[in-house]
């Protein structure tokens, strides 16, 4: 018999507020709530609750809350309850533990250990409500040799670049891992915002080709959905070498999520597991990567920038240097806190490095080598607020990828059970009755709101620093100071400690 494991969370219902409208019951795909006709009251089965807060949010009388169970094993600083339970689970079932979304462990968050500067007296802050405050930028190579035409005008010899209205893009999330409606919301928001969303490795649904101008298509190790039209429709092509949530391993979308539509989009059989290998089997070295970069450029007549996305790992600076010399236009670095629809728990929680440190190292390394103009740097995993974006840019990033924040805007409550496919918010599921819970009309507006709000905040912070273009913030590390950091961390981040003068 399986070891009984006490539920982690408990549903608390205030009986004086519950009007037994049964919304909670109707909205819980995990079947936690039920109505007892004998007592006329609602009841809950805590063991099924994943703490997604759907019921809490929809309860019209706010009668519900979810609390952490205070059930405990004997206190043990080494063997905490979660660790023990994981052993029981594995002993019960014998499997690899699966998790979703980003690493939840209490590692330091370096964004929170950096503070931003502001102007006082010697240099005026700029009021973004009165003065232009530019967050528009271009991503891509900037390596040029000035050439002029017969009239002396500078010729456009620039490689293809991506124009962004704000230094924010939606990270790769595949159709399959997230729903059709979630994809539609992302695509429409990207279009309205003048930024980009990313197909992930799930191909591009035929309905979304019309958003091509704002679409980055991914070419990953499984090559799902990759064909001529897919590449040609996109604004840019991203080669996914790795993902922050699970560096060094591939992907696995269970057959249950391969609906007819997903199967058509991914170009794989319906109902069969979609497995992305850990490596690209045609890329075993940097030279191989270069070949793929140029193959894709050839295929698209050198009209589209190619992005290479890697997970932030220990040797990231050297890897980035290699990529910068591979012909890629943009490097995307995904930190170890990046999200995922499913990853082995141990990988998610123990592999990779913080994106803040990776970014600082990569930017410094590329500058040292004089090749920073060869590539733009985009970072993600995890960028949680406009302040993180400002800090990332000041450290040297050109732009940020946001994934988890975008999903939160769509309703995700970070219950981290995407892998179960029963997302009550209609995001990480393919079940039609659940998918419809995410109305893209609402979703896209919330995404637009989020990015617009962040952009305003970025402008406010830039204005405070007396900087009126995001381009003048890029790599402007004097605008950052560290707090609670060791000398080593300060050195890697390339910033001074708070209180140290200019």
């Amino acid at each position: 018999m399986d070891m009984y494991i006490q539920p982690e969370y408990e549903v608390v219902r205030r009986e004086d507020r519950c009007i037994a409208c049964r919304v909670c019951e109707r909205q819980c795909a995990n079947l936690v709530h039920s109505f007892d006709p004998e007592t006329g009251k609602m009841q809950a089965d805590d063991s099924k609750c994943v703490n997604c807060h759907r019921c809490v949010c929809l309860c019209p009388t706010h009668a519900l809350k979810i609390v952490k169970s205070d059930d405990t094993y004997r206190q043990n600083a080494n063997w905490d309850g979660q660790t023990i339970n994981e052993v029981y689970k594995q002993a019960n079932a014998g499997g690899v533990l699966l998790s979703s979304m980003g690493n939840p462990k209490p590692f330091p968050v370096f964004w929170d250990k950096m503070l931003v500067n502001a102007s006082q007296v010697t240099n005026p802050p700029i009021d973004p409500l009165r003065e232009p405050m530019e967050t528009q930028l271009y991503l891509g190579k900037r390596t040029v040799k000035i050439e002029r035409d017969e009239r002396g005008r500078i010729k456009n010899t620039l490689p293809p670049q991506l124009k962004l209205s704000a230094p924010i893009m939606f990270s790769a999330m595949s159709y399959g891992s997230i729903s059709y409606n979630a994809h539609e919301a992302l695509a429409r928001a990207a279009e309205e915002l003048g930024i980009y969303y990313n197909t992930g490795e799930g191909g591009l649904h035929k309905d979304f080709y019309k958003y091509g101008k704002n679409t980055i298509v991914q070419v990953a190790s499984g090559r799902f959905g990759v064909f001529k039209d897919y590449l040609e429709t996109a604004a840019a092509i991203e080669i996914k070498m790795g993902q922050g949530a699970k560096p060094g391993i591939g992907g696995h979308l269970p057959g249950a999520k391969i609906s007819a539509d997903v199967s058509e989009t991914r170009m794989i059989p319906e109902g069969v597991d979609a497995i992305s290998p850990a490596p690209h089997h045609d890329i075993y070295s940097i030279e191989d990567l270069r070949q793929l970069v140029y193959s894709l450029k050839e295929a698209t007549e050198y009209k589209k920038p190619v992005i290479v996305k890697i997970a932030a790992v220990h040797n990231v600076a050297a890897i980035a240097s290699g990529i910068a010399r591979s012909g890629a236009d943009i490097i995307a670095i995904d930190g170890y806190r990046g999200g995922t629809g499913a990853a082995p728990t141990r990988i998610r929680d123990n592999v990779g490095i913080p994106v803040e440190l990776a970014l600082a190292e990569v930017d410094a390394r590329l500058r040292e080598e004089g090749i920073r103009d060869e590539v733009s740097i985009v970072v993600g995993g995890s960028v949680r607020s406009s302040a993180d974006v400002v800090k990332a840019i000041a450290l040297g990033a050109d732009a940020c990828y946001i994934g988890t924040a975008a999903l939160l805007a769509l309703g995700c409550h970070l219950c981290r059970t995407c892998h179960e496919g029963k997302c009550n918010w209609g995001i990480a599921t393919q079940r039609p009755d659940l998918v419809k819970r995410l109305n893209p009309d609402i979703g896209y507006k919330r995404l637009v709101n989020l990015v617009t709000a962040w952009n305003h905040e970025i402008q406010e912070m830039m204005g405070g620093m007396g900087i009126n273009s995001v381009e003048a913030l890029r790599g402007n590390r004097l605008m950052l100071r560290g707090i609670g950091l060791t000398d080593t961390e300060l050195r890697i981040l390339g910033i001074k400690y708070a209180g140290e003068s200019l």
Partner: protein
Amino acid sequence: MKRIYVNEKWCLGCHLCEYECAFAATGLSDMAKALKGKRIAPKIRVEDCGDIHFAVNCRHCKDALCVKSCISGALSKGEDGVVRIDRDKCVGCLTCVLVCPYGAIMPAPDGHAAQKCQLCTDNTCGVPNCVAHCPNNAIVFEER
């Protein structure tokens, strides 16, 4: 005029609109206090049929059969286009129920009159409360 329109594609069948309707009618500020232990008689009703759900309430027809058929003059169409019922005039004959093609007008729970959606112009909600609280924009209040 602004009407409530239904988009069944997005209706989740959560039935919140029914509760919000009933709550709006009470004029109270706390739903728990207003509805706890009560049987609600909302003027919007959700039909559930497998995975299909949609809400139905008065369409405020341009050419409202209920108004034309009302034997007491209790039903009228205002200059704002809203079809209203005067409960004091209504005798509960249900001719309106018999003629409404949408089944959107119904006997009031007390049995003495009919009741119908008046787009929350009969309370202090401002916009129809069902629309304001629909979690998925399955009902919208707009000009079309």
